[in-house]
């Protein structure tokens, strides 16, 4: 397309050409030749630019890699700088004298070094590289959509934007075992079994003495406690404890409610961080560790194991859980379109071009047959039939005699006959033209362009385009999915009119309780269950979870529940404000008080059911979990 500079220069050249050819050429040939030369120069530049964009800009290839420590890696780690290297190669036969390459950063990523853009001149076969460094702060996902290439001619008369759409997703794994998750060096229990072993107070074949009993025929002689037998004068047999591995299962709530919050600071991200530390620490102690990720309606179970591959698998599962965004809420179709179109224009400029995504005139015309005015039109069409009635005809004649000049009454009759047609035409035009006025025209254009894009992406037919144009619910759902897939959050009201969260879903506690129960059914001995769950707004619906906790406790398992605390809610107790109170502050205090109330209720109920409840934002959450793991290993026996 022509730039502003190109437009004014083309207008100037054309003006000189027209003036020279029409009139000034009579006096001097310089003016028309100058006009011809300048216009020809613009046209030749245009031709060259068109050739280059088709033979080079459309044939650019993008290769992207993440580099860490000088080698290409498939994923990044939290807190470890990673270099993003995007290489653009001109695989066409044309030459791009000027190209501005701008890499599109993942959502909320900020480069710590390097630049995300550069200018380059790309000959056929040439490559240009954009390189910068990111330092992810939270586990999740880095989604790179692609790279924008701005192409221009050297004079700056023409311009085109191309987006090299090569989506790439890289997981940001939780940090590797840090100081709080490393193996403890402080000896808290006197008789800790070796790593990976858990004392179970049942007879078995371990090392520790459990009990002494009278000798029974058939007992192996090596189990006879000779000293005790000598003291009592009868044979006494030693009973040895059972040694079993510690099994720890982590339950992570990855429901939509837990995914709410600022990017990188949602509850599920914090869950993933703590769970990753627990997993690595447990694996470091050769304990068996499993993971169950629970969403609103489903669960993903990874049975306990202790291998390195298993730990990496768990880290990937945690990262995938942390990377999820909450499902889009129902929103107004126009609001959704206003958010989706800029994204579509950025990522799919070629699909929104009017050559392949047309906006015909008839699209904006509003047919009167769809409106209530159609009844009026039908009535006007039928109006001449009234003249078939004798009384109406006489009345019309009387009117004509009254208002018309003598001998001109036919004009009134003609007017009465033509008036319905004129009215129909006026209504038809005025109603139809409304579609070309703001804001309706923009709304229709946005909707049509997105509808065609969505239908093309889904490989659907023309009927889908029309469906998206007319069905608000369908369009909103698809546009929400589009934004969700590209990790763009649609602003929506999170709270319903009664103050409850629109993501409130008591059914997810049923899913979580089912997950715990399912794990119980496979449990072998005393295990540790670490439940990381967000119970905001669900304190009154805890019964399914309480039942599962009671069942776990009844089987001598240990249940540890970690509840997140909202970052923007102070932990201190509420004190009523004095003096003038603003309404917003009052609402905020009420919401905070409700959060505290819910938290206290959940903690009380869970504690009563036998679980240990901790606040997740405590600095030593991981240490507390590991200490509890040690208690389980020692089977509660202190020596």
């Amino acid at each position, binding site marked *: 397309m022509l730039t502003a500079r190109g437009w004014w*220069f083309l207008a100037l050249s054309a003006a000189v050409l027209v003036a020279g050819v029409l009139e000034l050429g009579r006096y001097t040939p310089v003016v028309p030749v100058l006009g011809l030369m300048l216009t020809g120069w613009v046209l030749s530049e245009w031709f060259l630019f068109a050739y280059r964009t088709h033979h080079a800009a459309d044939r650019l290839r993008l290769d992207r890699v993440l580099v860490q420590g000088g080698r290409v890696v498939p994923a990044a780690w939290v807190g470890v700088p990673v270099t993003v290297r995007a290489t653009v190669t001109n695989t066409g036969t044309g030459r791009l004298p000027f190209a501005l390459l701008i890499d599109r950063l993942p959502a909320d990523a900020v480069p710590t070094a390097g630049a995300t853009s550069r200018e380059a001149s790309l000959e056929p076969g040439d490559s240009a590289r954009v390189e910068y460094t990111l330092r992810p702060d939270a586990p999740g996902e880095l989604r790179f959509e692609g790279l924008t290439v701005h192409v221009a001619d050297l004079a700056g008369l023409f311009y085109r934007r191309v987006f090299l759409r090569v989506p790439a997703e890289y997981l940001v794994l939780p940090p590797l075992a840090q100081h709080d998750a490393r193996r403890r060096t402080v000896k808290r229990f006197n008789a800790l079994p070796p790593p990976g072993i858990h004392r179970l107070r049942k007879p078995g074949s371990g090392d520790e003495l459990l009990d002494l009993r009278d000798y029974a025929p058939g007992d192996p002689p090596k189990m006879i406690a000779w000293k005790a037998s000598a003291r009592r004068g009868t044979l006494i047999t030693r009973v040895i404890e059972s040694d079993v591995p510690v099994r720890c299962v982590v339950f992570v709530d990855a429901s939509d409610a837990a995914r709410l919050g600022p990017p990188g600071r949602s509850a599920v991200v914090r869950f993933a961080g703590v769970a990753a530390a627990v997993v690595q620490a447990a694996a470091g102690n050769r304990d068996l560790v499993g993971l169950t990720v629970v969403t609103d309606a489903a669960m993903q179970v990874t049975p306990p194991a202790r291998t390195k591959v298993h730990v990496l698998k768990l880290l990937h599962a945690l990262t995938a859980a942390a990377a999820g965004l909450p499902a889009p809420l129902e929103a107004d179709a126009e609001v959704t379109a206003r958010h989706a179109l800029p994204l579509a224009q950025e990522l799919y400029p070629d699909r929104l071009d009017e050559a392949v995504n047309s906006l015909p005139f008839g699209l904006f015309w509003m047919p009167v047959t769809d409106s209530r005015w159609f009844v009026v039109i039908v009535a006007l069409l039928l109006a001449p039939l009234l003249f078939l009635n004798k009384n109406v005809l006489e009345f019309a004649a009387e009117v004509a005699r009254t208002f018309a000049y003598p001998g001109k009454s036919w004009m009134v009759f003609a007017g009465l006959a033509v008036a319905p047609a004129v009215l129909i035409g006026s209504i038809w035009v005025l109603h139809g033209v409304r579609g070309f006025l703001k804001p309706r025209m923009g709304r229709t254009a946005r909707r049509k362009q997105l509808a065609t894009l969505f239908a093309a992406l889904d490989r659907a037919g023309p009927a889908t385009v029309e469906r998206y144009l007319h069905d608000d619910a369908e369009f909103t759902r698809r546009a929400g999915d589009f934004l969700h897939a590209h990790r763009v959050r649609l602003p929506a009201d999170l709270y319903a009119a009664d103050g409850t969260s629109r993501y409130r879903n008591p059914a997810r506690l049923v899913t979580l309780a089912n997950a715990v129960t399912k794990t119980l059914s496979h449990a072998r001995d005393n295990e540790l269950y670490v439940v990381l769950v967000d119970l905001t707004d669900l304190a009154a619906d805890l019964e399914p979870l309480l039942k599962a906790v009671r069942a776990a406790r009844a089987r001598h398992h240990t249940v540890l529940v970690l509840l997140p605390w909202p970052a923007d809610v102070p932990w201190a107790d509420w004190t009523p404000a004095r003096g003038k109170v603003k309404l917003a502050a009052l609402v905020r205090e009420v919401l905070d008080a409700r959060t505290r109330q819910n938290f206290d209720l959940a903690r009380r109920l869970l504690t009563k059911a036998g679980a240990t409840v901790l606040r997740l934002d405590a600095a030593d959450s991981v240490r507390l979990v590991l200490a509890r793991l040690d208690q389980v290993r020692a089977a509660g026996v202190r020596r």
Partner: protein
Amino acid sequence: MTFPKLEPVQPARPAKPPAAVPVGVGEGPRDYLFIGVAAVLVIGLVLLARSGGNPFVLMAVVPALAALLVRATILPGAFVVVLVYLAIYPAGRPVGLPLPAIVSQAHFRIVDLVFVAAVGIYFVAYFRLTSLKYRILAATATLPAVAGSPDSPAAPVARQGAAVAGDEYARAFAQVLGLTFAAALAWQVTNVVAVEPLRVPPFRLEVTGNDGTSRFLIVAGALAFGALVFGSLVGYWSASKMRPAVARQFLLDLGWAESRRELNRREKWRAWGRGQLTREPFRVPFRAILRILAFCGMVLLAMFVGGVLLQQVVKRV
């Protein structure tokens, strides 16, 4: 559980910029500045020769030189307007003078060619210099350094696009010279070919010269015909080179455009049917009717009571 120890991250090796020099001071901008000034000098000399040595005409080159040095969009336009003026009135003083004589249509001199080519080269140098000094695209605009501002770069370095290819000058000169000769040739053609729309064929040779309307028709027709042919070729070529995904969307859009009236009708029927399903059955609004009746009754009662009272008052009076 031990993980492979990651090596310390090496800082990314920055790509070596082709020209790490301040914006607008590099080799490329300087060369184009000299080329532009040289073109202006040639233009000035030609104007001086055409005016018979009148130094006043040199004022025309002031906006051209200023445009090379400072950034003002209006200056090149003003330069062209002044050039056109001086081309008609070489002496530069039209007041009191008759209109210039009509020259022979075939009249063309080498100096005129040099003049046109110099203007073309000036504009090539001007636009390239603008691109190098300021910007090609809005996204590449270079902000001036502000002392003390933390966001301002201490020394703005040249963009990588500021590198000027070695054959760039030769290409630009060849392009301008070729276009100048082509324009001169086209002008000669327009002068000897007259258009007569009512004849078959609608052209004839006119060796004695042509009128402006005929010339305009030839130029406009050539441009329109060229645009038609060129547009058709480019359109066909673009369609043949279209990527599969875009081509699929093109066909989808075409299919929608052809069937949208029928589909539109179908969607409206669907919406109507859905509305029928979700619409609640009609109920007689008994409460509303009762309220209206009660209101009317109260009004009637009030009127009745008021009338009776008014009657009593009137009787007493």
